[in-house]
């Protein structure tokens, strides 16, 4: 039961969030709360994405995107506060991230342009990528299922072994 659920639970392929405008020279912080779902991309500056983002595998398809162009300073940290990326960029762009820890990934955006803009943040995962499931839930499911199977086998064996003794 748990194995069935966890094995079929796949993270949504694309999730994009847009806040209000970021003024010039101001830093906004986005929080990406996510389970450990393996390799993916963080996108900055894409309002809508259709097709596979680069580097995520899956069947090749033409990427269609609506985006905004803006120079930014980008800082990404993981739940343990380790820096994953820290540099100046020009949107739109993708950044490969291995989501291997459950928790909050922080994305700091500083508007280095000359006008206020809305900057969408998103996460993308490869289509049909078996790695993109909640790893901790999956391992728990496998463990509990194995324990259940072992208990059932032990119970059946004990019953089979006990029978001939009782009938003697």
């Amino acid at each position, binding site marked *: 039961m748990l194995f069935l659920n966890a094995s079929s639970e796949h*993270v949504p392929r694309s999730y*994009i969030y847009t806040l209000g405008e970021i003024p010039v020279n101001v830093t906004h*912080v986005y*929080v*990406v*709360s996510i389970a450990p*779902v393996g390799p993916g991309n963080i996108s900055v500056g894409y309002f809508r994405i259709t097709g596979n983002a680069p580097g995520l595998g899956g069947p090749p398809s033409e990427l269609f995107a609506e985006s905004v162009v803006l120079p930014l300073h980008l800082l990404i940290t993981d739940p343990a506060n380790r820096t994953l990326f820290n540099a100046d960029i020009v949107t739109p762009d993708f950044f490969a991230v291995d989501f291997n820890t459950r928790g909050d990934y922080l994305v700091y955006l500083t508007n280095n342009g000359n006008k206020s803009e809305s900057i969408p943040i998103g996460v993308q995962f490869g289509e049909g990528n078996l790695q993109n499931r*909640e790893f901790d839930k999956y391992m728990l499911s496998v463990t509990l299922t194995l324990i259940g199977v072992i208990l059932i086998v032990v119970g059946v064996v004990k019953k089979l072994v006990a029978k001939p003794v009782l009938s003697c």
Partner: protein
Amino acid sequence: MWPNNALIDLFKAEIQKAWSFPILEIAVGLIAFTTIANIHVLLNISTQTGLLASFSILISDSFFDSLYSQMLFLSIFCGVLVSLSFARDYEQGFMQTLLSSPVSRSVVFLVKFFAVILPLTILTWVMTTSIVFLNFYSGSSVMVVIEKALWALPVIFIALMFCGGFAAFISLSLKRTIPSVLTVVLAGFSIWYISTVTSDVVGNIANYFILTPFPVPLIALSRVFGRVVTPFISLGDFEYVLPTWVFWVLSVFYALVFLVPVYVYFTRRFEIRE
């Protein structure tokens, strides 16, 4: 008035009888399955100031979807257990033994009733809350899960009170185990089915189906969670016209509508026929 030893012993005996193997195992398995199958994947993007609000929506949706899926199974399961508790004991002669003991009829009824309702409520609440908590565990989510769970507990209890009261009414009317159980199962399905009939099928009368016992406690919970869209939206817009207190009052009404008359009947008029 503090409960004496006889009351506690009677309650323990009723719980052991009602929840003997494999009843408890089936309940645990089905509650866990429905909860896990309806838990949303943890994936949320927000600002730091909006993080709690975002989590609140995710956790509310998971709680609501889990309880919505569980409610049909729980209502039928509760009804069957209460039917077995009353009708089977009547058929097997245990009811006569209980009523001739020094314990009052009121205590016998309440013990038999709550020996099913209370454990099922606690089991459902604890398992659902634990699974939601483990799924959304992070520093930000603990208080949100506790807040949502505290609202879910009375809703589960009130919903099961209706099912138990109805089942007690059926079983004390029919006084036979198999007919009581079958009637309760059929009635449970019918009450659930009514809440799924849309206005396309029966016209505007479907608007009023949200006032039937199945959707009422769930809509009350959704209002507390601030959830605008419920699965019952297909029944029409009438749901949005009514204020929240209407659904809470109706929930409590349904919880007592069968329970009170059956309690009065059991304590005053109920007789064992040879």
